[in-house]
C-alpha cells in the first residue's frame, strides 16, 4: 500500500505546495513525518536508553530496504493507541502485549522473533526474574512471597509479570488477587523499588538484571534471585520457565512488498552487525510459536484471555462424565428429597393448620395444658367463660377459673392437682367441675383431661375439654324441686293421661281421698259427677278449669273440694296430660257459715242482732217505698228484767230473755223481723202495716203474750214490756237510724207513762 499511497500523497502535497506557499513549511514537515515507515518499540527500559539501542537498527533497516524508517519508543498504552490510529507500521513488543494487540485487531502475524545476544550466547527465549534484596533472609522460596509487596512493570509484561505470576500460582501464591502488586511501567523502576526496599520483591524480564550489572556491579551483592532455574546454555538468570522472545510484527496496512523487504533485512542481520550489537540482539529468527504465551495468559486469565474460556456443556460432560453423572444423581436426589420434604412439611403444616382451625372453631371448649399452665385454648372456651380473648387464659392454671369449693366439697386446686397427676401418669379422667365466669356466674362442665404425647418431651401435655352441663344441672334442680313440691304439697296433686285416667298422685291426694296410690292409679280423679267430662273438655279448650264441688271420701265423709285442672301439651301442641291440684275446703266452708251466723244473729236468743236488723230495715224500707205500703218499726224493752237477773242469776236472766224472744216471735208474722238489740232491748219490723190501728192490734197481742208468767230457775216470774213504735213512710224522708230513734223515743214515752203499754211516735214527743 505504502508506495502507491505515498506517491498519491506526494502529488497532492506538491499541488497544495504550489497553491499555498504560506503553509509550505508545515506541510513539508508533516509530509516527511508521514512518509517514514514507523517502527514502534516498547519502552521496557527508560526512553533515552531505548532510543540509543534501537536507532542503529532503524538506520540498518532504512539502509537495507531503501525505505525511510522512523523509530518510536513508546510505552504500552501509547503504542496501542498509535496502532489503533494506524500511525505505526511495524512494532516490536513483548509477547504478552503482542497478544493483547492481536486480539484487538487482526494482524498478518509475526514477521520474526527476536534473538538476544549475551556475550556470544544467543537465545530466543525469555523468562521472568523474581528479585529481592539479598539481605532479605525471610524471602528465599516462592512460597515466601505470600503477602509480600511486589513491584512489576505492568500486567502485560511477559517476564515482568505473567511468567513470574504463573510460577507463583503453581507454588500456591495468588498474585492476581493480591492488591500488593505495584505497577511501575518499566523494569528499571522495579529494580530501584526493590533496591530501595519500597517493595519486598520485584518482577523483571530476563536480561535486564545482567544489563544493569554492567553499569552497577554492586547490584549483584544487593539483589538475589528467587527460584533460580539452572538452565544449561541459557545466558541469563531466570526464575521461571521460558517463552519465546519478542515478536516483530507488521501491521496489515503495510504493503506486502515492504513487508518482504523488511523481513529479508531482518533475517539478514548478523550477530556482529553494529545495529544488532547496539540493541543487544543476535538477529531475528523465523516467528516462534507463541502458543505457550497464549496458554500462560489463559492460565492467568489476563487480557485478552480475561474471559473464561468458552466451555460448552458437552465438553464438561465429556471430561467429567463420571462426576457429572454422580453429581447429577446426587443433585437429583437432593432436589427430590427437598421437594419431597418440602411437600411433607407443607402437608404437615397444612394438617396442623387445619387441625388448629378445627380445634379453634370446634364448638366444644378445648384447652391445652403444659404442666398445670394453660398454653392454648379455643374460641369456645373463651366464650364459655365469657372472656374477651384467650390472652386471659394463657399462663394461668385451671384453678384460677374454678369455683374454689367444688360441689362435692373438695378444694378446687387440690382436686385439680390430683387429677393432673393422674393424667401425667397416662390416665384419662372425666369429672364434673364448676367454673366461674368473668361475671361470677357459675358454669357446670363435664371436664375430660387426657394426656397428649409430644415428640421430644418426657411428660405429656394435657388436653382438657369441657362439656357445658349447666342447663342439665339446672333442669335437674328444677326437677328435684318439682318432685319435692309434688311430694310435700298440702294440696292434692294428680296427673292423668289425655283421657283423664290418673297415672300418678301425691301423698296429699291419698290423705284427702282416703285411697292409697294403688287404688288411685288407673281410676278417675274426684270430679263433680254430673259434669266430669265437661270439665276435661273445658280444661282442654281453655287450658285450665277451676271450680268447687262436693265429693265424698272413701269413708263416706262429705267433702268440698276446690280443683284446678290444667292441661299439658307436648311440643306439637297435642294434649298429653292433665294435671290437677285440689284442696279439701270442707272445714273452711263450715267456719265460713259459722262466722256469717255469728255476725248477724244474737247468740243467746238466735234472733237477728242489731246488724242484721239494720240490714233488714234498709231492705224493708226500700220495699215499702217500691210497693207503696207502710211498715212499722217497734222498739221493745223489758220492764222488770234487772230484778229477775239480780234475784235468780244470769242464767235465769238468759232463760227469761230466750222465752220472751220466743213468745214475741210467735206474735209476729213470718215476713216480719224480730231482733235483739242488746241487753233487755228488742226491736221489730212489721211490714205491710195498714195504719196505726192494725199495728196497735199487733202490739196488744204482744203485750198480752209477754205478761204470761214464765217458769225460770224453778220460779214463776211475770214481766212486762214497754213498747214504742213509728211508721214509715212519713211526710219527711227519713233514714233507718232516725226511724229506730223515733221508736226508741216512743218507747221511753211508754216507760214514762207507766210501763206495760205501747206508745206511738208523734212530733210533739221530740
Amino acid at each position, binding site marked *: 500500500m505504502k508506495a502507491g499511497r505515498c506517491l498519491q500523497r506526494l502529488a497532492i502535497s506538491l499541488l497544495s505546495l504550489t497553491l499555498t506557499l504560506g503553509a509550505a513549511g508545515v506541510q513539508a514537515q508533516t509530509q516527511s513525518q508521514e512518509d517514514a515507515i514507523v517502527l514502534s518499540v516498547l519502552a521496557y527500559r527508560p526512553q533515552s536508553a531505548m532510543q540509543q539501542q534501537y536507532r542503529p537498527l532503524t538506520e540498518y533497516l532504512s539502509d537495507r530496504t531503501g525505505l525511510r524508517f522512523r523509530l518510536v519508543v513508546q510505552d504500552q498504552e501509547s503504542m496501542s493507541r498509535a496502532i489503533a490510529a494506524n500511525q505505526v507500521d511495524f512494532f516490536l513488543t513483548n509477547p504478552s502485549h503482542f497478544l493483547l494487540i492481536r486480539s484487538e485487531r487482526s494482524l498478518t502475524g509475526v514477521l520474526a522473533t527476536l534473538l538476544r545476544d549475551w556475550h556470544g550466547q544467543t537465545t*530466543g*527465549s*525469555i*523468562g521472568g526474574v523474581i528479585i529481592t534484596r539479598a539481605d532479605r533472609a525471610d524471602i528465599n522460596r516462592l512460597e515466601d512471597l505470600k503477602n509480600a509487596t511486589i513491584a512489576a512493570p505492568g500486567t502485560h509484561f511477559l517476564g515482568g509479570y505473567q511468567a513470574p505470576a504463573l510460577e507463583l500460582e*503453581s507454588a500456591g501464591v495468588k498474585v492476581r488477587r493480591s492488591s500488593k502488586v505495584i505497577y511501575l511501567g518499566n523494569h528499571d523502576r522495579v529494580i530501584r523499588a526493590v533496591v530501595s526496599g519500597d517493595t519486598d520483591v520485584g518482577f523483571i524480564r530476563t536480561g535486564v538484571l545482567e544489563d544493569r550489572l554492567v553499569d552497577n556491579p554492586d547490584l549483584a551483592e544487593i539483589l538475589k534471585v528467587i527460584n533460580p*532455574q*539452572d*538452565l*544449561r*546454555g*541459557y545466558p541469563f538468570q531466570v526464575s521461571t*520457565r*521460558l*517463552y*519465546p*522472545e519478542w515478536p516483530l510484527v507488521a501491521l496489515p496496512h503495510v504493503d506486502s512488498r515492504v513487508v518482504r523487504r523488511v523481513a529479508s533485512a531482518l533475517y539478514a542481520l548478523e550477530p556482529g552487525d553494529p545495529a544488532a550489537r547496539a540493541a543487544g540482539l543476535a538477529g531475528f529468527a523465523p516467528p*516462534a*510459536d507463541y*502458543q*505457550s504465551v497464549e*496458554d500462560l495468559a489463559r492460565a492467568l486469565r489476563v487480557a485478552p484471555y480475561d474471559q473464561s474460556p468458552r466451555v460448552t456443556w458437552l*465438553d464438561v460432560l*465429556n*471430561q467429567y462424565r463420571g462426576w457429572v453423572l*454422580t453429581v447429577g*444423581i*446426587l443433585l437429583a*436426589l437432593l432436589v*427430590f*428429597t427437598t421437594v*419431597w420434604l418440602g411437600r411433607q412439611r407443607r402437608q404437615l403444616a397444612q394438617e396442623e393448620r387445619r387441625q388448629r382451625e378445627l380445634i379453634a372453631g370446634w364448638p366444644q371448649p378445648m384447652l391445652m395444658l403444659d404442666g398445670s399452665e394453660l398454653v392454648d385454648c379455643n374460641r369456645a372456651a373463651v366464650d364459655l367463660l365469657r372472656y374477651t380473648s384467650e390472652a386471659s387464659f394463657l399462663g394461668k392454671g385451671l384453678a384460677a377459673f374454678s369455683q374454689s369449693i367444688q360441689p362435692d366439697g373438695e378444694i378446687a386446686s387440690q382436686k385439680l392437682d390430683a387429677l393432673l397427676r393422674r393424667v401425667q401418669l397416662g390416665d384419662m379422667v372425666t369429672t364434673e367441675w364448676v367454673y366461674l365466669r368473668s361475671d361470677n356466674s357459675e358454669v357446670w362442665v363435664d371436664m375430660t383431661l387426657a394426656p397428649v404425647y409430644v415428640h421430644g418431651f418426657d411428660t405429656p401435655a394435657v388436653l382438657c375439654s369441657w362439656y357445658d352441663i349447666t342447663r342439665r344441672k339446672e333442669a335437674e334442680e328444677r326437677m328435684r324441686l318439682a318432685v319435692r313440691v309434688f311430694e310435700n304439697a298440702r294440696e292434692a296433686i294428680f296427673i292423668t293421661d289425655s283421657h283423664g285416667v290418673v297415672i300418678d298422685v301425691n301423698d296429699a291426694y291419698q290423705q284427702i281421698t282416703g285411697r292409697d296410690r294403688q287404688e288411685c292409679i288407673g281410676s278417675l280423679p274426684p270430679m263433680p259427677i254430673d259434669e266430669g267430662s265437661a270439665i276435661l273438655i273445658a280444661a282442654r279448650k281453655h287450658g285450665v278449669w277451676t271450680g268447687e264441688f262436693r265429693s265424698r271420701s272413701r269413708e263416706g265423709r262429705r267433702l268440698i273440694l276446690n280443683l284446678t285442672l290444667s292441661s299439658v301439651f307436648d311440643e306439637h301442641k297435642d294434649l298429653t296430660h292433665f294435671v290437677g291440684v285440689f284442696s279439701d275446703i270442707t272445714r273452711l266452708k263450715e267456719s265460713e257459715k259459722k262466722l256469717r251466723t255469728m255476725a248477724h244473729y244474737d247468740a243467746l236468743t238466735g234472733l237477728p242482732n242489731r246488724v242484721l236488723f239494720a240490714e233488714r230495715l234498709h231492705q224493708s224500707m226500700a220495699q215499702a217505698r217500691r210497693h207503696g205500703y207502710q211498715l212499722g218499726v217497734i222498739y221493745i224493752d223489758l220492764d222488770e228484767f234487772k230484778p229477775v237477773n239480780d234475784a235468780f242469776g244470769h242464767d235465769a236472766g238468759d232463760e227469761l230473755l230466750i222465752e220472751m224472744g220466743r213468745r214475741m216471735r210467735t206474735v209476729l208474722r213470718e215476713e216480719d223481723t224480730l231482733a235483739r238489740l242488746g241487753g233487755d232491748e228488742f226491736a221489730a219490723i212489721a211490714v205491710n202495716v195498714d195504719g196505726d190501728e192494725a199495728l196497735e192490734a199487733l202490739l196488744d197481742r204482744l203485750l198480752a203474750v209477754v205478761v204470761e208468767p214464765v217458769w225460770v230457775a224453778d220460779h214463776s216470774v211475770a214481766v212486762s214490756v214497754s213498747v214504742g213504735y213509728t211508721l214509715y213512710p212519713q211526710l219527711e224522708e227519713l233514714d233507718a237510724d232516725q226511724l229506730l230513734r223515733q221508736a226508741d223515743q216512743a218507747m221511753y214515752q211508754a216507760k214514762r207513762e207507766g210501763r206495760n203499754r205501747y206508745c206511738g211516735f208523734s212530733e210533739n214527743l221530740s
Partner: protein
Amino acid sequence: MHRRHFLQLSLAVAASASLTGCFKKPPLRTGVHPWIGYETLYLANEFDWLPANVQLVKGQSSRDSLNGMLAGELDAAALTLDEALRLQAGGMPVRAVAVADVSVGADVVMARPEINNLSDLAGRSIAVELSSVSGVMLFAMLEEAGLRSDQVSVIDLPANQHLEAWNQGKIDASVCYQPVASRLAQAGAVALFDSSEIPDTIFDLLVVTRKAEEQQPEAVAALVKAHFRGLQHLVRNRHDAVYRIATRHDVPPESVRQAMATVMLPEVSANRRYLAPGGRVETIARRLGKILAREGLIQRMPDLENLPSRDYLPEDFS
C-alpha cells in the same frame, strides 16, 4: 419414595464414593530412562504433573526398565516396540498404551569414516546392544544392505560401552543413539545409516503389564495423560523445554534441538491411529516378531492380538 428406601439408597451412594476414595493402592511403578521421547515424563515429573498413583523409577537405560519388568519390580515402563515383544514372548503379557515417539533418525549407525556405504560393513565388527532397539536397527540395516547377520561380526555390547570400545579400536561400527552418537562423532565416527531411512519402524512406547492394567487402570490413564501433558510442554513451550532437557543431559541446547529433530512426537490423534487394531504398531510388531524369531532373539512368535490399546488415551487433549 418410602423414606427408609431413600435412606438406604443414599447410603449406598455414599459407601461407593468412600470406598473408591479411601482404598489405597500402591502406585504404578513406571520405569523410565533418558531418551528424548521420554523427556515428556521427566518434564511432567519436574512440573509436578504426575499424580500420586504414578511413581517414576528412573533408570540408566532401557535395559534397567526391561529387567525391572521381568523381575516384577515395575508395573509399567518406557520401552521400544521390540522390547515389548520380547517381554510378551518371554511370558510377560503387556500392553502398549501410548507411542511416545517414532524414531526418524534418532537411532543411528556410526562407522569409521572409510566405510562409505552399507555394503562396506561386510566382515566388519559392529557393536550393538542386541537386547535393545539397536538389534532391530541392525537387522533392518542389514536387510537394507542385503547382508545376512553372519556376514558381519556382531558384538553384543551395551550402548554406554560403545565409546570405550571405539576408542580401543575394537569396533568398526556402532548401532547406537543419542547421546552416544554425538560422543562417537566427536571421536571421529560418521553417521552411516539412521532410522529416518526405515520410517515408522522404531517405536518408543509406554508399556504396562496386563496385571497392572487390570488392577489400576486409572493409574495407567494418569500416566498416559501425564505423558501427553509433558509432550504439550515439549512442543508448545519448546523455548523452555529445550533448556531443561539440555540441563538434564548436560548438553548444549542446540544439541537438544537437533535431537528433537530426529524423533516424531505423535500427539493424541496420531497415537489413536498408530494404536488402532491393524494399525502401524500392530503391523510393525508382526514384522519385528518374525525377524526377532528368525534371529533367535525370541524363542517364539509372541501373541500380538491386542498388544496395542487405545483405551487409555485421553479423549480431550488439545
